[in-house]
């Protein structure tokens, strides 16, 4: 068995982990499983793609940054895409989720997110058709780094970007007033309200972080794999499995869960074949639910 699966697994794991942060935050703070989260990912990616094309149309062809396959347009476009995805999440919350949340039935909100997910995805399919597209068709030469492992410059850059983002969100959650308010709300909503935490602003921050990170994860998929309307929906099960494996509400847990699932998937591809890849997250999910339903870093609900 070649050790190459470690790199593949870490990369898949980064995408899953970044997405799972949004899932775990929505679950712990707004108390519902957002089935539309994967579609935020796809929308963010298509928004980024649209901005990249717009920049390309305005400035002509921009040379990529030395060893990477992409240049500054993609970086700028990703920031715009992150903002767009965050706004999309906020908008959806305003017109749909917040109204249903106020009725106090969590499961109705889940159902609405299921409907929104279908509508969002099919709208992408209508606009861009289901044909896959790419940020760049250039093929990168993978560099050998020892132990039979090869890695491309893009992959190194994306792993670093993930590390920076995860560290950033972790610091935000632990060191800032907003982050502490989010934790308080997730641990005991009633008590958090009593001590005067501004619930509306915490909810907004939750959507902004979740949406922006979903967009980054989607762009990573776009750079390393391909862009399709279904790209986010296919990530839904791995993201939920990662969030539950890590323990709902825990950001380090979501990322670690994502990495474990990514590595397990990559390992399974080598051992039993790529066609069974999607079953890995389900098996891990069931194992966690049987053995330790609160996950690795979970806290029992109070």
């Amino acid at each position, binding site marked *: 068995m070649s050790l190459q699966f470690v790199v593949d697994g870490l990369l898949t794991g980064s995408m899953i982990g970044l997405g799972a942060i949004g899932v775990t935050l929505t679950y712990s703070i707004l108390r519902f499983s957002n089935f539309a989260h994967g579609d935020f990912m796809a929308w963010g990616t298509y928004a980024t793609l649209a901005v990249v094309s717009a920049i390309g149309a305005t400035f002509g062809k921009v040379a990529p940054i030395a060893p990477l396959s992409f240049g500054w347009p993609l970086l700028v476009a990703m920031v715009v895409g992150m903002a767009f995805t965050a706004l999309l999440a906020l908008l959806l919350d305003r017109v749909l989720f917040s109204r*249903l949340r106020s009725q106090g039935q969590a*499961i109705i909100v889940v159902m609405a997110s*299921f409907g929104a997910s279908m509508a969002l995805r*099919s709208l992408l399919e*209508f606009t861009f058709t*289901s044909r896959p597209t790419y940020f760049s068709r250039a093929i990168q030469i993978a560099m050998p780094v020892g132990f039979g492992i090869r890695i491309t410059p893009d992959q190194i850059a994306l792993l670093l970007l993930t590390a920076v983002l995860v560290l950033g969100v972790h610091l935000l959650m632990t060191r800032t007033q907003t982050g502490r308010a989010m934790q308080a709300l997730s641990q005991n909503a009633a008590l958090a309200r009593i001590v005067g935490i501004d619930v509306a602003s915490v909810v907004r921050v939750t959507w902004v972080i979740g949406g922006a990170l979903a967009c980054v994860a989607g762009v990573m998929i776009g750079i390393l794999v391909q862009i399709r309307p279904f790209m986010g929906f296919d990530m839904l099960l791995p993201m939920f499995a990662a969030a539950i494996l890590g323990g709902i509400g825990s950001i380090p847990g979501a990322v670690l869960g994502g990495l474990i699932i990514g590595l397990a998937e990559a390992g399974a591809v080598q051992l039993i074949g790529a066609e069974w890849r999607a079953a890995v997250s*389900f098996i891990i*999910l069931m194992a966690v639910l049987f053995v330790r339903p609160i996950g690795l870093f979970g806290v029992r609900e109070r």
Partner: protein
Amino acid sequence: MIDLIGYGAFFLTTALIFSLVTLGLNLQWGLTGLFNVGLAGFVAIGAYTSALLTTPDDAARLGGFGLPILVGWLGAMIVGGIAAALTGMATLRLRSDYLAITTFGVAVVVQLVALNAQKLTGGPFGIGFIPRPFGSLAETPLLFNLSNLAVVCAVTLVVFFALEHLSRSPWGRVLKALREDERAAISLGKSARFYRVQAFAVGGAIMALAGALQAHFTGFIAPDNYLPILTFQVWVMLIVGGSGSNLGAVIGSILVWGIWAGSGTLTSVLFAPEQQARAASLQIVAIGVMLCVILLIRPNGLFGDRLQRLRGKRAKLAAGESGSDS
């Protein structure tokens, strides 16, 4: 005219098969409050089980036992029920959202098995030559369609009345009690998990039966028949009809299938062939938005609400009568 009757019979047969799935979902969600977003998986399990049991022997894959159709239906219900019971046992002690994610996963895995376990399911090519009831009548489409409709009608009626009976039985009352106030029901000595697993299993068995009926009605099944869109359609049917009402489940299914098939016909008339795929995705957008709007403005659907109002009126009348008596 005869064509129209034939099409009407075909349409109703499909709608009634959907209504069977919706009835199964209504038992799980409407009566018991269990959130199943992987019902396509249970429908697929039923279809494949019945197909394996009843098709003639096939060298390319396992099975093909050539058993009678009724045995296939029974087998589908048993396997579907067991699959649902196992899912329920794993997750029903946890928060309800976990059940949603797990059932979603079940559907993904069933889809994977259908696609990749060629020896068992025929892979992407599916299974053909599934025996059809009244197959000998296939020469005369009208008679064939009508007799199929009669079979599906009969099965739907049996399931409908069985469910109506169940929901009024002590068993059904326990489920409703658990849905409304779990603590109170548990304090009366009812095991929440045990009852919920039972309800989930019965619902899963009904969905599997619907899958088997559909498989025998069309004679051919493939993994593409059981995509998440099926789950979505059935949920819209139940919400439109009104969750909690069996009558609502049936009427919602016929209504939504009418809208779905009608808009499908409309797009095929209005759009050029190369635009059909895009038009179909727009159709899904419309139905998705419809689901969200109904949840916002009329979460009880067409019948859920009215039944409650009737019940409320009756209760008021009863109270008034007893008041005047005293």
